[in-house]
């Protein structure tokens, strides 16, 4: 475990200093800061719209950060030959991969945390009529985004053992877009195909592909009640368990491929 944490800590340290990530983060922060002031242009009582919009910005920025950070994680180590020095120590390939993954998740958590903090401060300064429920929803959503982005990082990690960073960037991006729009797509597919073979196929694909809406609370309590017919806490817990299981599967596959790969 010591080796994994050492690699994770170094990865985190390096990630939070990467210029390209800091630029993306700054752009995201700028959007988050200016977005509450846009509410002045809309009618009163539109806090709901504003919360959704800012959470959308937070989510998109986090996703761009997650993909940009993870696609280069392993290729950079090989190109710079740092991996050779590390693997010549008593470090197994799986320890290296898991360490890199945990480090990137740590960096994402730090960045999402920072954006959430800025969003909350901006919100409290500009939206004095915002309720505690709105604040809680932002915090809960941010927590869920960390798990969502971990899942996205796991997928990018798996692809990085097979394809080049550029291809990985597009593949992971497509998976994210598809996984985010999955529910409406499959709902319409299910409705049109009924219960036949096409319906079965769409249900299998629905469960096999990563569904990011399972790990999303942006819709609030109503969404939770509709989804599981229970409390928001249960919905969140289900989402977190789903993300952890799916991410673990991605990592196991990545380790199996990376273990046999020539570096």
């Amino acid at each position: 475990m010591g080796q994994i944490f050492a690699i994770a800590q170094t990865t985190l340290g390096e990630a939070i200093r990467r210029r390209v990530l800091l630029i993306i983060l700054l752009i995201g922060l700028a959007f988050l800061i200016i977005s509450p002031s846009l509410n002045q242009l809309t009618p009163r009582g539109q806090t709901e719209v504003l919360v959704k919009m800012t959470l959308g910005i937070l989510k998109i920025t986090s996703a761009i950060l997650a993909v940009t950070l993870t696609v280069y994680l392993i290729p950079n180590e090989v190109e710079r030959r740092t991996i050779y020095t590390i693997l010549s120590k008593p470090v197994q390939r799986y320890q290296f991969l898991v360490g890199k993954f945990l480090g990137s998740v740590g960096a994402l958590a730090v960045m999402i945390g920072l954006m959430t903090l800025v969003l909350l401060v901006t919100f409290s300064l500009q939206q004095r009529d915002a309720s505690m429920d709105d604040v809680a929803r932002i915090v809960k959503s941010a927590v869920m985004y960390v798990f969502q982005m971990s899942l996205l990082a796991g997928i990018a990690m798996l692809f990085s053992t097979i394809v080049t960073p550029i291809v990985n960037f597009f593949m992971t991006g497509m998976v994210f877009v598809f996984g985010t729009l999955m529910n409406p797509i499959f709902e319409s597919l299910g409705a049109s195909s009924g219960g036949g073979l096409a319906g079965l196929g769409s249900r299998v694909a629905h469960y096999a592909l990563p569904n990011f809406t399972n790990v999303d609370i942006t819709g609030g309590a109503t969404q939770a009640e509709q989804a599981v017919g229970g409390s928001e806490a249960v919905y969140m817990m289900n989402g977190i368990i789903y993300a952890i299981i799916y991410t673990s599967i991605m990592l196991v596959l990545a380790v199996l491929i990376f273990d046999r790969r020539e570096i």
Partner: protein
Amino acid sequence: MGVAIKTEDLTKTYRTRSGKVNVVDHLNLEVEEGEIFGFLGPNGAGKTTTIKMLLGISYPSEGTAWVLGKEIGDTDVHRRLSYLPEKPYYYEHMTGLEILRFYARLFNIKEPERTKKAEALLEKVNLAGDADKIIAQYSRGMQQRIGLAQSLLNDPVLLFLDEPTAGLDPIAHIEIRDLILKMRDEGKTVFISSHELSDVERICDRVTILNYGKVVSEGRLDTLLKGGRIEITAVNVPKGIEDNLRSDGVIASFHDGRLIIDAPDTIATDGFVDAVRSAGGTIVSIIPRRKRLEDLFIESVGGRRVLTEQTEQSEESV
């Protein structure tokens, strides 16, 4: 003395557009404990690939090898060995001290021993004054020295050094060379891959020269470099005498009016001296020339086209 490294038909094959290429071709070698072993060859000869296979970073296509008595692939043996890669790169945001502490963590070395060891090694490689500078501020020589320090963290019994003196200034060059000699005095086995033939000649006990992945020359340096040459220069010698002096292995020719005789040192020089004098010539100099590793290297690989390292890297492993 035991065997530190043994390879048996170790082969690495890459698939290229023109077919399969054995970058390392049925390599058989043995490195004894406590010796400095030079692993030489032109670019693309298969040196780095061999080291990577011995470290378990790359997988052999055929054959196998044993390092410190364990078959390759056993990462537990990495506790007793270390590796300094060619042109190493270290995380630039970390300081010299931090980088050594990071590598020490990979060996599960706990605090306060971790910091104590890192500081002692920084002292050993003359970087104590730069311990708190970030790696991005280190010169090439300093980075090479921090690389050597990280390779000594676990007090290894076997060191793999890939081009340890490449790109260093003369002072840093000598320092690293002395450090390597000190390691042998401490009983460590050092496996050096290098293009710096003068260094290898000074410090190695045995060498293997590789070309196209195959061993083309190997043995103890003192045996391989036996048989130097002797160069005799004479003036006022009439033309035509050189034809009488030439024989097997003896080259005699005129340059700028001077007769130069280049002969193996096993031939007595008296006969040449007498022949020159009796023809009215004067001997200007007799210079014995020891065979150099460079001569042996050129003899061994000379005239053979080699693959470039880039080609080797870009091919697909089989």
